[in-house]
């Protein structure tokens, strides 16, 4: 008797949990998906910190909320092409912004440069700190020995593509190629150097500046690779998004950009 009662009780409990879950899901899906006074921004992962601060400043000025979705520029572009609807897209390289331009996602059919980054050579802080200039007389292999060179995967990570261009520019790519450890994005390329799995790395200056575990050995000259620009495209007509876009390139925003190492 008691066994069957317990059984019944279990069944009731399970039923009510299932019912609760279903009603929760239904209620959630009924709520409006598009809220007023919210700007949705899909942006490259390397802009995370700076955009959050810029966003806070902008939210203080206007009574508007910003929602961010950070990821690799390519992943975000594919999400948008498949139907995701942000108000603003910011890419870390031109080809993904162009990809969405060709799909006619952007309302004005144009993209805008909003910031610039630089490329640096880094090493784990407690291993190597001596600063030097990069030129054709440099031998990376001498520094590397048998160790690895960590860069973003040059097949698809923009930071890795810039790194390859810069290394080719100085004739260093051939000797460095067998040492390359390709990261799935520029942040993991940085992490590998922080963990001393690689003796050297080529990453964005903004990321290197924020890390306490690596030291910057050298800056790559701007002319050794394609310009590293961030491109933004408007995906929505709204006036508030346009306001945010012009805020991003305003003088007030510039000091914040520079505080994070952007130019």
């Amino acid at each position, binding site marked *: 008797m008691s066994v069957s009662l317990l059984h019944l009780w279990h069944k009731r409990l399970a039923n009510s949990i299932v019912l609760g879950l279903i009603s929760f899901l239904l209620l959630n899906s009924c709520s409006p998906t598009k809220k007023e006074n919210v700007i949705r921004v899909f942006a490259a992962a390397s802009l995370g910190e700076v955009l959050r601060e810029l966003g806070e400043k902008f939210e203080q000025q206007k009574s508007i909320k910003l929602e961010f979705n950070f990821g*690799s520029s*390519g*992943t975000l572009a*594919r999400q948008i092409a498949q139907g995701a609807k942000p108000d603003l897209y910011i890419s870390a390289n031109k*080809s*993904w912004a162009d*990809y969405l331009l060709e799909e006619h996602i952007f309302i004005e059919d144009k993209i805008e440069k909003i910031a610039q980054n630089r490329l640096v050579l880094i090493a784990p802080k407690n291993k190597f700190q001596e600063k030097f200039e990069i030129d054709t007389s440099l031998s990376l292999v001498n520094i590397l020995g048998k160790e*690895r060179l960590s860069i973003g*995967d040059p*097949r*698809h*990570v923009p930071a890795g593509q810039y790194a390859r261009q810069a290394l080719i520019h100085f004739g260093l790519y051939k000797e460095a190629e067998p040492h390359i*450890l*390709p*990261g*799935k994005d520029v942040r*993991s390329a940085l992490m*590998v150097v922080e*963990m*001393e*799995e690689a003796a050297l790395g080529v990453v964005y200056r903004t990321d290197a500046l924020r890390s306490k575990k690596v030291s910057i050995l050298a800056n790559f000259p701007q002319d050794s690779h394609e310009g590293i620009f961030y491109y933004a495209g408007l995906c929505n007509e709204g006036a508030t998004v346009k306001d945010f876009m012009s805020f991003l390139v305003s003088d007030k925003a510039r000091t914040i950009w520079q505080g994070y190492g952007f130019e």
Partner: protein
Amino acid sequence: MSEFFGFNGAELQAISLSVQVALICSLISLPLALALGYLMARKEFWGKSILESIINLPLVMPPVTTGYLLLLLLGSKSLIGGWLLDNLGIKLAFSFYAAVIASIVVSFPLIVRSIRTSMELVDTGLEDASRILGAGKLKTFIRITIPLALPGVISGTILAFARSLGEFGATITFAGNIEGESQTLPLAIYSYMQIPGQEDSTFRLVLVSIFISFLAMILSEWYIKKMKDART
């Protein structure tokens, strides 16, 4: 049509690497899982539930976390990884072996669970009879316990093989995405997905991975059915 099946070098490398990693992973896991499965099914000892939780942890943890923990545990700055590097000159992280280790850790709970369950179902009376008739512990284990638990052993191994084929998170974190070294099928698919206009390559590799997993599943089903028929 021949164009479609014409895989390029990098794709073939990823396919063969995946199969190698999965095979080595299953081969290493199997004896360990047999011993551990037996231990879990037959013995009571202090800390058994803790050991069980540790084995099962990779099953519920996000694979990226598992990879990160492996990096902390076996990376060149860690105690174990540092010792290996200083004394034997072996760098585990970001190599082929790292891909195998990641696969083993992630698929191990599946094979242990399956073997343990099937060993629990083996009649201990038969094991006792074998011992009374003079067979040693090891002989009893090999001649009685394993054959009777064989369906579970096989399906566990296939599960581990399949899980290892699909392993992504722990591999990319601990072994990296190096062509010809640690770029397995899922990692190659991921890389192709990141490049605009590589949809064909992506799709080809997706088909291959479905085909291999499907083949493994069908083989195990067929074998278990054959054994059932032989018994009745």
